[in-house]
């Protein structure tokens, strides 16, 4: 696996290496959402460069970005964003629909992903028949079903009570433990606590970049682009 290198947001240089658990914090308007959009290939920087797995994706068009999102990025949203008329299984299969998996494999992969988030017995439930925590688990299953390098979670606990939120964070931590890069956007300290590295933004600038919890992760701020990699 190559390194994931970011140059973004007002004279900002950040390297995030594969397998990290990063929290992006800051008040609204601080640039954390834009940062997440660029990291998730939903947006491209107007100047500068974003290298994902060693590939410069900052000049790609809409459709090329969409194709990269299919394979490399999974999104988890505050409001879950599940399709109301579709079962948990169908919701999780959605990304596979666009990556062109055959029907049988779609079903298998979605079942495995639902199993991984502990919802094997809820496959045929509609979102309305699920609790908030369960809905977010379905969303997480959808994010990981294509086995992407990065999971981007935008306020994943914002719509949940603290106990359920804790469970969701534990699940994300577990995914990170299995090697997935997790990038979390939040404004809650308690939630950011799960990450091992916290980036704090204010007014479009990165103001702090702190490691927390277990050490050993490489961190560089305002440094030249080539960061250390885990290979």
């Amino acid at each position, binding site marked *: 696996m190559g390194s994931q290198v970011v140059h973004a947001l007002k004279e900002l240089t950040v390297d995030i290496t594969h397998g990290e658990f990063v929290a992006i914090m800051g008040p609204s308007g601080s640039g954390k959402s834009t940062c997440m*959009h660029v990291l*998730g290939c*939903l*947006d491209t920087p107007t100047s500068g460069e974003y290298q994902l797995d060693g590939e410069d994706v900052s000049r790609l068009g*809409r*459709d090329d970005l*969409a*194709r990269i*999102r*299919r*394979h490399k990025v999974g*999104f988890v*949203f505050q409001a879950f*964003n599940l*399709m*109301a*008329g*579709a079962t948990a299984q*169908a919701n999780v299969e*959605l*990304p596979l*629909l*666009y*990556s*062109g998996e055959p029907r049988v494999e779609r079903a298998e992969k979605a079942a495995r992903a639902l199993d991984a988030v502990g919802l094997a017995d809820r496959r045929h439930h509609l979102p309305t028949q699920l609790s908030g925590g369960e809905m977010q688990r379905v969303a997480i299953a*959808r994010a990981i079903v*294509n086995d992407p390098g990065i999971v981007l979670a935008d306020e994943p606990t914002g719509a949940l009570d603290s106990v359920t939120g804790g469970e969701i964070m534990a699940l994300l931590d577990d995914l990170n433990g299995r090697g997935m890069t997790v990038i979390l956007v939040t404004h809650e300290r308690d939630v950011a606590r799960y990450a091992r590295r916290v980036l704090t933004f204010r007014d479009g600038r990165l103001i702090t970049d702190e490691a927390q919890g277990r050490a050993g992760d490489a961190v560089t701020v305002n440094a030249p682009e080539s960061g250390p990699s885990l290979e």
Partner: protein
Amino acid sequence: MTFSDCLLSAAASLRSNKLRTALTTLGIIIGVAAVIAMVGVGKGAERRIDEAIQGLGENVLFVRNGTSVSGGVRGGSNSKVSLTKADAAAIERQASAIAIAAPTVRTTGQVVSGNSNWFTTVYGVGDAYLRARDWTIGEGRTFNPQEERAAAKVAIIGETIVEQLLPGQNPIGNIIRIERIPFRVIGVTRPKGESSWGRDHDDVVFVPISTAKSRMNVGERFRGRFVRDITVKARSADLLDAAEEQVMEVLRQRHRIRPGQPDDFYVRNIAQYLEARAKSERTMSMLLAAVAGISLIVGGIGIMNIMLVSVTERTREIGLRMAVGATGRDILLQFVAEAVAVSLIGGLVGVILGFGGSLAAAGIAGWPVITSPFSAVVAMGFAALVGVFFGYYPALKASRLDPIEALRHE
């Protein structure tokens, strides 16, 4: 995203809002059903007139006896008998535009064979008449000149007479009695079927004109040299008008009618009249089908309207689909597929309703209606086209959404 995935996905989202889907399809249903029914009724009317023309025989004019006027009281057709067998012969001889001029008389009577009997029309004619009216002999043969001259008691009968009097038998050589006079059946005409207003062309008996005049009751006025009418066949459709003029010329001369005096006969060009009617009915049904087509377009606008609402409502869903990797083309295809699915469902139901309505019209109002699979295919194709056309703009709008904005949409 494969084509079948696209359709499944479209079906899923259509199912999620059944009432709206049903109401949207309604416009297409009505449009397609109306087109199918109008085309069916139009074709039926055309066929009816075609059949009527065929029943008449091609390029046929009828010359009838004129009207008597006595003290200002007009006597109706045939009240003044003036046409003769010699007139017919003269027309055939002198008029270049005319192939056949065949004199006829007519009577009605009871026809009996064994235990069966049947009331029918008996025509006194010659072989020329059968040729003029496009009657062909199915079994047996036509009259020969000897029989026509000698007032032979031979008959050519229609299919219906065979069914009524001689079912399951070979009619040729059988003896039937017409008003107690025995006739030998020498031929059976090929069926012409029923005219659309219910007259059975095949319920008919032909005997030689000489036989009818000498042995049967054809009416006091038609004894001797006079005949009921003369059936004229022009050499071609183009010559019908010329034929009509030539008939007038010959008859006025033979009947010594001075210029300015009224004719003592009528010439009827029924085919021309029927064709004019066919033309006006065709125009009418085209107009109706055009109106129905317009309602199909209105239905398409309904689809567009609902699709635009749907794109706005589902903005977040579109954003999500893009976030998980849908390209603009994927979104475009999905929404076009939805619009086409709506219009095809509407088209299918409309075809069924249109056929049902046509059959109901045929059954209840007695209109002849012709439904063809071709019009169903055309209507479905047009419905699909409407779906693509009116679904494309909303789909394009959806495909151009910015995923970030779309995901934020409330």
